């Protein structure tokens, strides 16, 4: 069995009086694709933010890639995000006045140094070799999401987080993006945690967990 890349024990997150995530014990093996489902406000994004080092837990322990995220300083957490995590959002968050290749290079810049040749290759890999110089406004939703995927994987993360990455896409684009992610995951062997409302999207993963009011209520393993 693969070693766990994510290990939580009684992981809790409170926002004032509201308990967004109730004590959660979770293990995610290295290379697994975990889908997280649940209604709005069930704690999906909270879990993703904690695992990605974007937020700090209120209680419990959280180990990601052998690192105790609670013990990390702000600088350490930033380094962890930079070197360990790639994130794809529903709202793309691409810089509108930069071209596709420049958007990818920006992630390289914050990681280490930009390398245009490598950024071009990443975009060619997601099927956008012909759209390198186009700005986000000149790309379709699916194409923009593929730029986001290229941006997320350019720094070879061990963990890829997706916060409803296909939420804004039509069915055809959704299938294209999910197929691409699966292909990349099989090649690079990174771990994916994907928050989604869509049962069909969740089915791309190896396992799905269901959250309700901050509690893990159910978990099911998908057939390959």
């Amino acid at each position, binding site marked *: 069995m693969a070693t766990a890349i994510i290990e939580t024990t009684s992981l809790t997150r409170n926002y004032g009086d509201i308990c967004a995530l109730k004590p959660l014990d979770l293990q995610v093996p290295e290379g697994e694709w975990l889908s997280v489902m649940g209604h709005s406000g069930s704690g999906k994004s909270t879990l993703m933010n904690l695992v990605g080092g974007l937020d700090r837990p209120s209680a419990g322990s959280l180990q990601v890639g052998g690192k105790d995220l609670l013990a990390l300083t702000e600088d350490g957490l930033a380094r962890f995000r930079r070197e360990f995590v790639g994130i794809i959002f529903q709202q793309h968050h691409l810089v509108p006045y930069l071209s596709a290749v420049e958007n990818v290079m920006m992630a*390289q810049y914050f*990681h280490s*140094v930009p390398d245009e040749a490598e950024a071009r290759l990443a975009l060619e890999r997601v099927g956008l070799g012909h759209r390198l110089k186009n700005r986000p406004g000149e790309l379709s939703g699916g194409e923009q999401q593929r730029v986001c995927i290229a941006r997320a994987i350019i*720094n*070879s993360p061990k963990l890829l987080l997706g916060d409803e990455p296909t939420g804004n896409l039509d069915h055809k684009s959704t299938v294209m993006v999910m197929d691409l992610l699966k292909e990349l995951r099989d090649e690079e062997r990174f771990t994916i945690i994907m928050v989604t409302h869509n049962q069909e999207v969740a089915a791309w993963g190896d396992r799905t967990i269901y959250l309700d009011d901050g509690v893990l209520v159910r978990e099911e393993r998908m057939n390959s």
Partner: protein
Amino acid sequence: MVAIKLIPHILSWVGIVLILLRGFPERKRVVAVAVGAGFALGVAGTFFLFRSFPGDFSFSLIRDVVGGSFLLLWGIAVASIYRSTVRNFPLSWGERFFASIFFAGVGAFMSGMIAGAISVCRLGTSGGMLMLLILVLVACVLVFESLAIERLLPPSFTVSNSALMAGVVALLLFSSSSILRLDLFSPLSMKVMKFTHDFVHQFFESMLIPDHLFIHIHLWRYIGLLFGKEVGFWGGLIIWFAPAILIALAISFERLPSVAHIRQGAQRRTVVATAIRARRFRLVVPGITILVLAGAGYQSRFPAVEYWDPKPIVISAGPSGEIVIPLKGEVDLKDGKLHKYLFSQGGKEARFFVLMTPTGQLTVDLDACAICKPDGYGQTEGTVLCYYCKTLIPLETVGKPGGCNPVPIHFTEKKDGVYIDGLTLINTWSTTVQTTARVKEGSK
């Protein structure tokens, strides 16, 4: 008051120790001991040097050592810029020597010794052994403080060998430039100015500059710039800053590590980024060096010393044409201070001074030299300074002719005073000083 005087030296000392500690991270203990011991020996050695050889000799010796270290820095700077452009550096043994424990120890010891010697030049020996003991104790305490400060510096902040040398030498120059007799920048500016003037003059004498009417006028418009006073200052600045700039350039030209064998792009870029970050950190010391050298240059150009420069006493000759200045009249001529006088005859004026040198000899000289515009002299710290060219003349050499020394005047010392022939005085002024001054004014 003593503490204020010592501020530049204390700052330099802490800086030197910090740079040495960071420059030899594996040999901190050796460096700390060696630099402290060197300082103590430098203080003791200079104390005995001043006791044995009072006068300019000791200052000259220390100034020459500091000047020698500046020359060495020039050599290192040229070697490092050459190193950055070739793959097989022929002086790689030199790099191995730099990394050895022997160099760490000897380098730290020498640095400490020069720093100690400079500090004694500031304090002098009048405070006695107790003052010097306190100085050594303070220096040792500062070594311990520096060890603590050094631990707070980020680990990625490293110092290259050439930058280490540049930093230490710049701090020694900063320390020495606060002492007029150890200052190197002003003499350097002067040398550059004199060299430029001589060079252009010889060039002209050799008829290498064509004397055609048209060329003559236009060419001399530009050649005239080389005769300006500022040419020495700007030329001096170039020589002063060039080693630090060359070393900074050499560091910025350093090759990045080869990453062709690393398959993963992110890992490849991480290695490159780490090397670039380390290179930036290595540029910090040359950057500081340039600032320190600027500080040293500023101290040299605007020294924080007060000159003894009394208003000339108007004096006249007796019926025999002789000027008589009593040894103990309005002023005491043998008090070791410069006493200026103004003498007029037949519509002409001559300014001169009487001074007793540290060797106990009275001397009468014009308040001008045969080279510069007659801006006069001021007295400070065992020297007189030519206000025009900022050359320091040790008191021991006042009364001797040549160079920028005040032009000596023949006089007779009798029991009641000093006797000077008025006509000789006026003629000497007219034939040496005024001509020079008129030519210089005319060339502007």
